[in-house]
């Protein structure tokens, strides 16, 4: 009972504000200049990737009341960069992370519909929510949402945006110069939405875009996040790229689709994945250790411990032993503006485990952080990495991966040059783009076809 081989989907996450990005390497370029984005996008397109992915954070991260200065700081505006990248690429999908808490549906729908027109149908939206008043200090809306309202606003935001995308059907523009009829329908774009979070009505002013709606990504991992994805997303940007965790997540989420009348093909699971390539597996392992040391400076190691201890540890020597004081388990957290703080839900247990590890291996603070931190997802020769990626996809760990190189902008180049040809040889990755839109690349139906099928069935 051999199944046909699944085709792999690959995407490229621009390395920026992220603790895996190595900015101190001599090859590391600008994270702001457009030439870096253009280089990265052209590499991804040369390698026939499905899309490029941009993350977003709407307030600079802080720790101990000060702007966090050890990782890359600063990024450009997502929409503006993606629109410019549409000019230097022809096929590559353009995925932007856009917040549903500090935006309004009418404006975001206009921006995605415009991006879809300006890119010939290549836009995608990673819908995220914010939870903190900290970020809200930069916005009119201010304030924050209680945990339980985050997803209700996000769901209603997306549903409202879809109503706006669907308010034009695609046949309204006659542009009949002789007859003097520009619009066939004076009511084009009409919408009414009265809900808990949004009470809006009127006419949307961007005609139907090539993809109908942008491809929708969801990244949350909670129970609510998984349901939201199963009901409304086209793809999940997940963090489970290992064999066991990945398969469990994949099975869990795909099994939720049926109750929404959707098939397994309607939602792609695409975890973030890091990689280190070497000529041999041994060389790659050595390089991977070196990259980990670059990623975790002594100062970074101390700051990482502060997430758990939740107190100022600047007096400690990162090359020395772990602090002997206990963590502060109060409500106030030392770190703001990042998702990472939620990783350690039981700091006392974490500290106990870390002390045991450090004692057993004679590790310094920095050694501990390097050794307990996430190992790169794929480490090895191009042949090993290509084989592992294919094995994982065929084993339903995922439908592909969103690769996060650690060097800007050239970090994707070796993957494009050495790994992609091997995947192509195995017949599991495209050698040419077959369609023009991102939906084509991802094998997703146009929303109008979906609705047509549903009416018919």
């Amino acid at each position, binding site marked *: 009972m051999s199944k046909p081989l699944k085709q792999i989907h690959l995407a490229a996450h621009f390395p920026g504000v992220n603790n895996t990005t190595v900015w*101190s390497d001599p090859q590391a370029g600008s994270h*702001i200049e*457009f030439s870096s984005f253009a280089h990265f996008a052209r590499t991804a397109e040369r390698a026939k990737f499905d899309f490029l992915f941009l993350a977003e954070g*709407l*307030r*600079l991260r802080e720790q101990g009341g000060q*702007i966090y*200065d*050890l990782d*890359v*700081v*600063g*990024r*450009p*505006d997502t*929409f*503006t*960069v993606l*629109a*410019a990248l*549409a*000019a230097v690429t022809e096929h590559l999908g353009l995925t932007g992370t856009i917040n549903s808490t*500090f*935006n*309004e549906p*009418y*404006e975001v729908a*206009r921006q995605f519909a*415009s*991006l879809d*027109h*300006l*890119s*010939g149908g290549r836009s995608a939206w990673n819908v995220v929510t914010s939870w903190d008043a900290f970020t809200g*200090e*930069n*916005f*009119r809306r*201010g304030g924050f949402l209680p945990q339980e309202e985050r997803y209700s606003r996000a769901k209603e935001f997306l549903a409202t945006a879809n109503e706006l995308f669907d308010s034009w059907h695609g046949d309204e*523009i006659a*542009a009949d*110069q002789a007859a*003097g*009829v*520009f*619009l*066939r329908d004076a*009511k*084009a*774009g009409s919408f009414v939405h009265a809900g808990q979070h*949004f009470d*809006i*009505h*009127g*006419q949307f*002013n*961007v*005609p139907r875009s090539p993809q109908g709606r942008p491809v929708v990504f969801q990244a949350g991992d909670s129970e609510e996040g998984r349901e939201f994805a199963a009901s409304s997303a086209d793809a999940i940007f997940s963090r489970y790229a290992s064999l066991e965790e990945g398969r469990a997540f994949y099975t869990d989420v795909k099994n939720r689709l049926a109750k929404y009348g959707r098939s397994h093909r309607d939602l792609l699971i695409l975890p973030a994945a890091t990689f280190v390539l070497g000529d041999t597996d041994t060389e790659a392992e050595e390089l991977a250790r070196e990259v980990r040391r670059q990623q975790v400076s*002594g100062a*970074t190691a101390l700051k990482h411990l502060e997430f758990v201890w939740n107190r100022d540890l600047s007096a400690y020597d990162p090359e020395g032993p772990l602090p002997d004081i206990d963590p502060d388990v109060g409500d106030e957290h030392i770190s703001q503006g990042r998702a990472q703080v939620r990783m350690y839900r039981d700091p006392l247990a974490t500290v106990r485990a870390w002390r045991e590890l450090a004692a057993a291996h004679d590790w310094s603070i920095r050694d501990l952080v390097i050794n307990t931190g996430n190992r790169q997802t794929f480490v090895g020769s191009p042949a090993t990495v290509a084989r592992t990626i294919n094995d994982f996809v065929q084993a339903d760990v995922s439908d592909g991966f969103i690769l996060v190189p650690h060097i800007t902008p050239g970090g994707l180049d070796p993957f494009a040059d050495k790994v992609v040809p091997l995947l192509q040889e195995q017949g599991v990755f495209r050698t040419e783009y077959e369609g023009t839109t991102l939906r084509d690349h991802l094998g997703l139906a146009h929303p109008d076809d979906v609705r047509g099928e549903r009416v018919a069935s």
Partner: protein
Amino acid sequence: MSSTPVSSLHLAVALDGTGWHPASWREQVARPRDLFTAGYWADLVAEAERGLLDFVTFEDGLGLQSSHYGEPDGRTDQVRGRLDAVLTASRVAPLTRHIGLVPTVIATHTEPFHISKAIATLDHVSTGRAGLRVQISARPYEADHFGRRRFPPISLEELRTPAGQERLTGLFDEAADHVEVVRRLWDSWEDDAEIRDAATGRFIDRDKLHYIDFQGKHFSVKGPSITPRPPQGQPVVTALAHQIVPYRLVARQADVGYVTPHDAGQARAIVAEIRAEQEAAGRAGELLHVFGDLVVFLDDDRAAAEDRRARLDALAGEPYDSDARVFTGTSSQLADLLQELAGEGLSGFRLRPAVAGHDLPAITRGLVPELQRRGAFRTAYEADTLRGLLGLTRPANRYATA
């Protein structure tokens, strides 16, 4: 300062759909089916750059276009719908090298934090050619698209009453706060904040990043921006103004104001009003351009231009009326008019092509060579940034303590 002669004019073109005449889309050259494609906009901006223009502006709006100010008109015989102006400008940025790109942003309904980083990014993408044109919206139907506040019904006539003026004043004050936040955020990173100091592991010098701590009637914004200071330091801020309330916004916050005099006397009076407001705002020594806005029908002889206008008016079913003076004639006649108005203190013009496909090439291939012959327009781009083209120096950072 710029190397162009003092008598030299600045020229911009205002892009809006197929042109400013409501029947422009029915002309052979108009390409109305391409309006929602990148290629259409890329071609227009390339034509403007061929003519060495200082910049193009992109109109925008948060609702369907309407021939009535306060409500949708339900018409189907004119262009309706448009793409986001900032994204359109960014889409053409990598395809051009010299021309400034100035999209419209609506201060009334947008977040200054988002606008600031978007225009900063347009400046990074275009390596120093970005600006913005700030606009307010008093339209109730656009407010209804956001649902955050309701505006009572209003017509253009009602806006001229004292009650209408009070509403406008409030919206312009909010727009001034919006631009203030946008500008502070542009300065919230000093130019050399990124240090990449491997020895200490620090990517930035956080003493060179600044909270802006803006507190206003409509919003408070903490900062700093998430986007580093743009190449120009401060991208160019522009606004269209028809009377004293918006003149005050221009005087307080803009680098270029667009005004709509119908003759030389009006031009002189408007320039005097703006200069007085500029002094009152404490900016007396600063370079603030006042550009005249004109709708143009340009042909080889005046009769042809007038015929074309009459033909379009007949298609539209009514004579075309505009806030700006409508010029019909030849390149030489337009050059005469521009030089006459410049004599009253206007330093440049924003021309609104009646038909983009006809009047934009007429500007770049007819008017520009005519002005060049008179020594009144550049013969090559003399600067790499929009501020440079406009003779604006790169400003010091307000937060830097050198």
